[in-house]
């Protein structure tokens, strides 16, 4: 009872200070807003109007129809017509074009021979994103006026894209972005919050009072849990409103997952605050955690493509597990129970970090 009283005292004090700190308050709203717009609009892997050229040696109505349909897809924009495959290669080398479409002279005859490729797509492979776009062109269904449907290349296996059939990258990014923003703000705010008390000398006073370490930690952390949930909601609403983010799973499940992740991030922040001596150091340490989180968690690059050492590091980062939960619930409509192991890891992480932080904190003045 007395313990609760003291926790509430710390909590109330923290809220008062937070309310007075306009810059921090602005960051709480500003960071999710800005990152949402940056990642949602600027970082876009749905490429439109790639510079392209074509060579049409067949020069028949069917080949012109093919060129027109590829053009109409808006994936590429043909800006030059060349006369040989050598010229296409040179265009790619000089950087004038990224993609070249080569239509051979026997195009019409190939239309009748399903086992032969219709045409060739030359790709600037130095940018992997361009390659994947080129593959889209290769899958392009082509219905010639003669009635037969063929693809540019023989494709014996049909691919069906689930959950994000239009393959819009913003939908894929938003669920992970929630985690990235929470990682950044939660870790930074708590790490700085405790270090600031030490820098300003408040801690020296507090440890002569009956307030226990754990009470102080909990009281300081709870306001940020609320902030974390507010940020989560901002991103969800914006994601739905601006990018049409689907919420296929149970929203309640998602908030439970978010809560576990917030707890893990906050306690990680507390842990940082017990090993750093100044607010500046706390910020550096936050970056030290943030960078691998962004790069290794699967937010930017597929987890499966990373070498095992990187995967191993990624497994220790809370963000990796949250992104699996978040994408699972929001995009695939998974239930929390199906992803229980990820949730359990997050909760375990939070408890472990809190235990370490509390232990380390008690030895601080020594």
């Amino acid at each position: 009872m007395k313990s609760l009283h003291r926790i509430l005292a710390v909590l109330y004090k923290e809220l008062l200070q937070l309310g007075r700190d306009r810059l921090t308050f602005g960051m709480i709203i500003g960071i999710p807003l800005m990152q949402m717009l940056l990642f949602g609009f600027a970082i876009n892997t749905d490429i439109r109007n790639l510079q392209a050229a074509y060579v049409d040696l067949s020069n028949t109505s069917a080949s012109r129809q093919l060129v027109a349909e590829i053009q109409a897809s808006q994936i590429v924009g043909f800006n030059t017509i060349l006369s040989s495959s050598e010229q296409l290669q040179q265009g790619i080398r000089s950087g004038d074009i990224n993609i070249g479409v080569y239509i051979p002279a026997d195009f019409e005859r190939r239309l009748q021979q399903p086992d032969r490729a219709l045409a060739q797509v030359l790709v600037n492979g130095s940018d992997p994103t361009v390659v994947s776009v080129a593959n889209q062109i290769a899958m392009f269904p082509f219905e010639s006026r003669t009635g037969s449907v063929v693809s540019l290349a023989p494709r014996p296996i049909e691919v069906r894209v689930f959950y994000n059939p239009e393959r819009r990258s913003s939908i894929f990014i938003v669920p992970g972005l929630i985690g990235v923003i929470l990682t950044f703000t939660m870790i930074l705010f708590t790490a700085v919050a405790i270090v600031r008390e030490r820098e300003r000398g408040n801690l020296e006073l507090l440890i002569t009072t009956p307030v226990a370490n754990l009470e102080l930690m909990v009281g300081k952390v709870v306001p940020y849990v609320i902030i974390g949930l507010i940020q989560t909601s901002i991103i969800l609403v914006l994601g739905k409103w601006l990018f049409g983010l689907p919420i296929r799973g149970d929203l309640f499940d998602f908030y439970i997952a978010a809560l576990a992740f917030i707890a893990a991030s906050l306690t990680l922040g507390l842990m940082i605050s017990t090993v750093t001596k100044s607010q500046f150091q706390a910020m550096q340490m936050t970056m030290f955690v943030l960078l691998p989180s962004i790069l290794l968690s699967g937010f930017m690059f597929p987890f499966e493509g990373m070498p095992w050492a990187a995967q191993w590091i990624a497994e220790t980062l809370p963000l990796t597990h949250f992104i699996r939960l978040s994408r699972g619930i929001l995009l695939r409509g998974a239930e929390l129970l199906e992803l229980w192991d990820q949730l359990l890891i997050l909760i375990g992480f939070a408890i472990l970090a809190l235990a370490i932080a509390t232990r380390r904190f008690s030895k601080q003045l020594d």
Partner: protein
Amino acid sequence: MHDSTELAVSARNISRYFGDLKAVDEVNLRIEKGTVYGFLGPNGSGKSTTIRMLCGLLIPSSGTIEVMGLKVPQQVDRLRAAIGYMTQRFSLYTDLTIRENLRFIASIYGLNRTAANARIDELLVTYNLSERAAQLAGTLSGGQKQRLALAAAVMHKPKMLFLDEPTSAVDPENRRDFWENLFDLSAAGTTILVSTHLMDEAERCHRLAILSAGRIVADGIPHELTAELSGQTLGITTPRPRRLRDVLLEQGAVRSAAQVGNQLRVLVEAGSNNAINAIRDIMQAHDLSGEVAAVAPNLEDVFVVSTSQSQRQ
């Protein structure tokens, strides 16, 4: 120990190392209940470290401590309710108002809302802060900040108060008022341990310990400490005080010579017979004129003597 109930603080042979540095060296301390006890010493003499050990903030490398009958650091959780501690630096929240700060401290000590409000109003009046209750602590003057810190330290009516250089950022008038506040608390039965590097503050204490390089080099009642030096302090009025000072400092029996206005204040070794005549002879030999007379020793002299003794050892 039959008299342990009369002692607020009893420390035996406490030492504290920071790495290889010995910050506190075999300190023994007995403070009777209800006294204002002073720690006088320069920066780095171990005052703060000793106070922190007594509060249970630092664990002594060796030695035993008992404060208000409780073993430190073993029983420090119970001790916290019985002591108040005012840090050297202002350690309340600068972005909270006076009342918010006090309310926070009150809830930390478990006062309920009505009790807290009554106590806060009482403290605001006692420490003359009522008019500024809604002002942010960061915008207060040095004296106001310090009164606020004292109000927070005595919120739970502690039986023992530790003050670590409380007046370092305060002007003389506020300092005088502050000491009146301390004696009010003392009269109400609070034991107070206060550290300072100011002689006039040290003189006000009931008892005093002089610290140097982590050791207590003298302790006692201030006027008794000064009385022990009678006959050893001389005042010399001379037209050439700098020259005279250089000459005197070459003499083995002269402990110190410091200029105070036109006068040179000279401290000689204990047992120097007829120091006045001896100095007159030296002055004559060096062709220096001036009036030599005995003056009453003060705490600064005690401080100089005891610290220079500790350095020779």
